């Protein structure tokens, strides 16, 4: 027999949980219903295979490929920057560093994560690009490289923090067995502990990717505003997120074709991040048991 006050609190808490579910459903509903109108007019093959994205101008092309390569290029550069640093920092903090060092460095890493992304974007445009221009020929003001590098710096805390938690969770017995076999600290760290924590590290990487894919401000400021189908990182590109910002800040009519392109781009982005989050959840669930 529950008291009424207990029941009321239970209902309130349940409804709070419910609100998050409802919000997600609401977002999915809006995305699907608005892009329905888009896909009714533009055939899916055009959307997926056309090499130009110019829905706002006279000659309209609706190929998502330039925006996809923009997102893809900046994300890959971000990963290449963040992955080595993130994992090395994680290994050092978990295997080598003493308690005092950990206590100082960990909060500082978290500061990197707390810097507003618009500041990162500005930093990329005004500091990183001129610096890179001194030794890379043909680097334009808006380019994928600076934006990618700065995004990498931004996701280092994500990768290092989660990887470190994964490394920490590896049982001590594995390390001790390795030392018992005569391995050095380095060999233990990279040949035993890191492979043992690989599922957690993989999850950290995937979340880092998801963060980079959804990043808007850094790329809108530093990577450019022209959809460009290229793999050359020195050129300006536009990502899906930057396009959505560009159109939303402008002057398109509600319910026009240009308006619907926002939702088509949005649903593509949503599908990607949704898939990434689900893959990471599945990996965590499936592989975590093996090493516990």
């Amino acid at each position, binding site marked *: 027999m529950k008291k009424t006050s207990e029941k009321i609190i239970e209902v309130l808490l349940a409804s709070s949980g419910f609100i998050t579910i409802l919000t997600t459903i609401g977002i999915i509903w809006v995305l699907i219903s608005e892009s329905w109108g888009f896909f009714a007019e533009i055939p899916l093959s055009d959307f997926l295979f056309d090499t*130009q994205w*110019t829905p706002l101008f*006279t000659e309209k092309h609706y190929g998502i490929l330039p925006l996809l390569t923009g997102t893809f290029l900046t994300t890959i550069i971000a990963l290449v920057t963040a992955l080595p640093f993130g994992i090395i920092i994680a290994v050092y903090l978990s295997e080598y560093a003493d308690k005092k060092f950990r206590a100082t460095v960990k909060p500082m890493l978290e500061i990197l994560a707390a810097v507003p992304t618009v500041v990162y974007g500005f930093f990329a445009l005004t500091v990183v690009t001129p610096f890179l221009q001194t030794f890379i020929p043909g680097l334009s003001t808006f380019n994928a490289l600076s934006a990618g590098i700065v995004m990498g710096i931004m996701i280092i805390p994500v990768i290092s923090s989660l990887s470190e938690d994964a490394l920490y969770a590896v049982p001590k017995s594995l390390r001790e067995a390795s030392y018992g076999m005569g391995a050095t600290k380095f060999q233990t760290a990279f040949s035993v502990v890191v492979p043992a924590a690989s599922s957690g590290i993989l999850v950290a990487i995937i979340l880092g990717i998801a963060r980079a894919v959804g990043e808007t401000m850094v790329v809108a400021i530093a990577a*450019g505003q022209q959809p460009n189908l290229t793999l050359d990182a020195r050129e300006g590109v536009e990502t899906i997120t930057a396009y959505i910002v560009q159109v939303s*800040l402008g002057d398109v009519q509600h319910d026009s074709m240009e308006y619907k392109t926002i939702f088509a781009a949005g649903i593509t982005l949503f599908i990607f991040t949704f898939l990434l989050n689900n893959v990471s959840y599945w990996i965590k669930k499936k592989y975590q048991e093996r090493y516990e």
Partner: protein
Amino acid sequence: MTDAGNGQYLCIKFFKATYMKPIFQVFLMAIAITIVMSSCGSKDSSGENKNGETKLQGDIKIDGSSTVYPITEAVAEEFRVDQPGVNVTVGVSGTGGGFKKFGRGEIDINDASRPIKSQEDSICKANNINFLELKVAFDGLAVVVNKQNTWITGITVEQLKKIWEPAAQGKIKTWNQINPAWPKEEFHLYGAGIASGTYDYFTEAVVGKSGSSRGDYTASEDDNVLVQGVSGDKNALGFFGLAYYEENKDALKLVSVDNGKGAILPSVETIKNGTYAPLSRPVFIYVTQGASKREEVKSFINFYLENAASLVPDVGYIPLTTEEYQAQLTKFQEFTGTK
């Protein structure tokens, strides 16, 4: 954990490590008390400012063209010295973006680098918004290239059309396609975005039809973005208001435009006497009748027209003649019924 969730988690850990410490909270309290006390103490509650005019209070919302923005912002800055109680905010959504808000009654004044279109006019009428158009200055559109561009000094309107017309999209990509003497390298275009009045004006003057342009260029309603782009890219070609070129002279190279009567560089003289054609144009502000009934808006517009002759050249634009400003002032006074 989702990426946003993880960011929050890290922020919360940081927050707890620093902001939750008691000494920090005492510090914050001390700052808060100081702020509250100082804001209570220093309000000047006398009824007149130093010029002897009555002190006004209120908000004025301005939005619209990034071309007209420097003029309006310069006027607003001077106005704030005179009337610190009036809060003037100036946005940069582009002429078209500004007219959207104007038509819904969300802003009081719209900066416009082109006259209002008939569709925008109908929307205003449908929402019962009467407005007044006031000419405030002349502007020239500068065609610019990167400082390292050694091959171009002048361009004809025909060549500009060949570069910017819709048919050029995806096909006209290299300098030598325009002029065989130029190198066989890809050019990168920078220009106004579709919400920009500059875009409407440029396409009408160069391509022949307003809004008709190729789509594969870096489009932005913010001219500063275009300045950044052109100054950092050797193969860049862009267009924006002359004032933005004047501000960034050392990073950009000006190109003369030939419309059949000879190559003309934009300058105060050539725009004023009309020889820099077709890329010179008047720029406007539009004010709603509802807004102009408010004392602070009346005061602002009067201030604008009275001081434009001196402020406009300061920011790199071409002022109208004193008689023309007087005529605009009279027009405004008749509009508000104070003549």
